[in-house]
């Protein structure tokens, strides 16, 4: 009798404790995928790496194998863990706030990066590796991750914004895409497309401003903040640009709101594969969306620079991105930095960014190398001229300006501005941007 009572008691205790440890139905802290390289090596230093894109692991596992062959005196054991986007950034933020539990190396998305540059910066400067190669690279992409002269992360790509045209629709409409040089030309071409085909020319998104508003203001040397961190979201250039986005839908009627709210959504992939629209404005890394989600479009897509705002104006902008950083919680920060530079910044590392991941590498001295020019699935899909076009626009790419309030600007833009001007057409661009800027200014005090 007594024994059974005790057993019952312990049983209850076990259940309660298990329930405490187990957590909710989706709050588990487990990584989706873990890959380990160099497990069998003795004395290997363990490097943990967190990412939110499983594909990125290929770059590092490849580099780790080469590293261990070339550096038998300082072998590494790479543990690469993939988490969902939100969860990885939340875990990292909490690890950095509390000073423990963080990884040695980590991928941080560009829009989230300002969060990690506040307070005492917990990331290691990479200057000794970055400074020697800056002359041969698109420097603005390194500046995105810099503060007070220190470079805290290595970029994954240039993210040059380009226009992807559906050549079948363009031919049917009788438009020569090489004659589209300015946004005015683009509107004229759009009118022909709408007149002669069942498709619209383009889509404006409401939830992904780096696919329209941001590159279009960046190519005019504007931004949400200026280089001193002052908010310029509601300056005249930005108002005019938003006006243009509103006009292509409601005035010229050559575009419609992107299905799913943005061009990176399941709804949009189906719509575009079904000839819903004739063009997509997106950074070059959008190529992989075609390969993964719109494979039927092979051979139908041509890549051209963005239209300029005036003849001779800038024809691209660097958008999106992931910076890889070493945290100060690394067991051996010097080794982690050396390996990271080896994997991502060296000539071979940059070549691999293209051959393994299909990204336009930040170092343009690799763009014309044999390895980069060799056949691969991207050339099969989009034709051969990708890097010739990149060389043409490489000096057009401006640095983006970030502050700790950047996430607020993006949130205001997606929440209120696009809703009122693009989706419902109830506000003028000037009213909407002024209102958003005031809301952010209130936060900045």
């Amino acid at each position, binding site marked *: 009798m*007594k024994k059974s*009572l*005790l057993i019952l*008691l312990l049983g*209850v*205790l076990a259940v*309660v*404790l298990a329930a*405490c440890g187990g957590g909710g*139905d*989706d709050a588990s802290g487990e990584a989706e995928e873990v890959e380990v390289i160099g497990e069998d090596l003795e004395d290997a230093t363990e490097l943990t790496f967190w990412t939110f894109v499983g594909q990125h692991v290929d770059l590092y596992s490849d580099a780790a194998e080469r590293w261990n062959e070339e550096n038998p005196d300082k072998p590494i054991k790479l543990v690469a863990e993939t988490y969902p986007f*939100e969860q990885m950034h*939340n875990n990292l*933020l909490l690890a*950095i*706030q509390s*000073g423990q539990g963080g990884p040695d190396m980590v991928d941080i998305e560009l829009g989230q990066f300002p*969060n990690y540059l*506040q*307070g*005492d*910066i*917990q990331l290691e400067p990479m200057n000794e590796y970055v400074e020697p190669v800056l002359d041969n690279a698109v420097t603005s992409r390194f500046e995105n991750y810099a503060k007070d002269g220190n470079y805290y992360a290595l970029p994954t790509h240039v993210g040059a914004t380009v226009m992807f045209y559906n050549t079948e629709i363009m031919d049917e409409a009788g438009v020569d895409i090489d004659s589209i040089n300015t946004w005015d030309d683009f509107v004229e071409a759009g009118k022909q497309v709408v007149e002669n085909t069942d498709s619209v020319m383009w889509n404006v998104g*409401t*939830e992904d401003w780096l696919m329209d508003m941001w590159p279009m203001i960046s190519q005019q040397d504007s931004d949400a903040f200026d280089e001193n961190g002052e908010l310029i979201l509601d300056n005249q250039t930005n108002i005019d640009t938003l006006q243009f986005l509103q006009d292509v839908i409601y005035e010229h009627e050559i575009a419609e709101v992107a*299905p*799913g*709210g943005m061009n990176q959504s399941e*709804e949009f992939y*189906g719509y575009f594969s079904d000839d819903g629209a004739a063009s997509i404005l997106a950074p070059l890394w959008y190529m992989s969306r075609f390969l993964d989600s719109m494979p039927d479009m092979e051979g139908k897509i041509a890549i051209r620079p963005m239209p300029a705002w005036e003849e001779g104006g800038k024809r691209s902008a660097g958008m999106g991105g992931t910076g890889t950083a070493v945290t100060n919680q690394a067991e051996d920060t010097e080794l982690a930095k050396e390996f990271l530079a080896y994997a991502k910044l060296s000539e071979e590392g940059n070549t691999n960014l293209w051959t393994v991941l299909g990204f336009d590498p930040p170092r343009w001295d690799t763009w014309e190398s044999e390895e980069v020019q060799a056949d691969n699935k991207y050339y099969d899909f989009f034709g051969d001229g990708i890097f010739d076009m990149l060389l043409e626009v490489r000096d057009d790419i401006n640095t983006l300006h970030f502050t*700790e309030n950047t*996430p*607020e600007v993006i*949130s205001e833009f*997606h*929440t*209120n501005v*696009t*809703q*009122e001007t693009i*989706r419902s057409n109830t506000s003028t661009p000037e009213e909407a941007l002024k209102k958003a800027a005031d*809301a952010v200014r*209130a*936060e900045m005090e």
Partner: protein
Amino acid sequence: MSSPAQETDAMVRDKQPNKLMSILNSKKVVPYIFVTPFILSFVILTLYPAIHGVIMSFQKILPGQVEWVAFRNYERVFNPNFYKALSNTTIYVVLTVVILTLIPMLLAILLNSKAVKFKTFFRASIFIPALTSTIVGGMIFRLMFSEADSSVANQIVHLLGFDSVDWRYNAWSAMFLMVILASWRWIGVNVLYFLAQLQSISSELYEAADIDGANAWQKLRYITIPHLKPITIFVSTITIINGFRMFEESFVFWETSSPGNIGLTVVSYIYQQGIGQNDMGFGSAIGVVLMLIIFVISLINLIATGTFKRGDE
């Protein structure tokens, strides 16, 4: 207690192996042992974080730099976004309380009546949604209620002769989506509560009513519903609390930002500010305000329904 010393010693020696057991089993100790797991988990997982949250709400927290800012976080709380979040949440609470008490009550009465066949089957199928996670269920809802003409919901709307609806972009349909997801998921659980209570109502009461010539409606009105009162109070109270804490139903449709903040709830606002924008102190301040709101409303609810008086009646 006047027994000689040796005798006591002998007793103690005899009882030694069982001494621990007898302490554990004594009426004074056992209750504490039983509540220990709860107390421990409450102190570690609820009380400590809550106190720490209150402290954090007075701070500006950055890595390596924690600064005391007094009431500055609270001064920022009462802004238009917070009011929008609060009004969304309040509407959501009112709707879910009404739907999640009335419908389960009616379903339970129906499932308990002799007229219905395949009761076990219906009970099981109503309960199954509770086993899914809100996120998984929500993903399916999101596809069903996509704005495309081909989505399930829009197909139905077409059959009724209306145009396609942009479900995730209108204020009314946004609220509809969140409420229907919560209702789908929780109705089964609440039906179980009501069923349990219904089965405890003595059948003699109904027999007596039959003898007095009461009809079905009178039996429902004067026997069943009054007996369901305690469980109704319980269900409505937890629905109010869960409603104010709601987060996943909004997150699954819009993640952190919804058009015109139509899906913003107080907790998603905490998440957006505290974690998304790395402003933990401000997030904590919103959390403290939310805690006070829930406390006051639950108190009003419990006083109004007479819960505190039950013992004296």
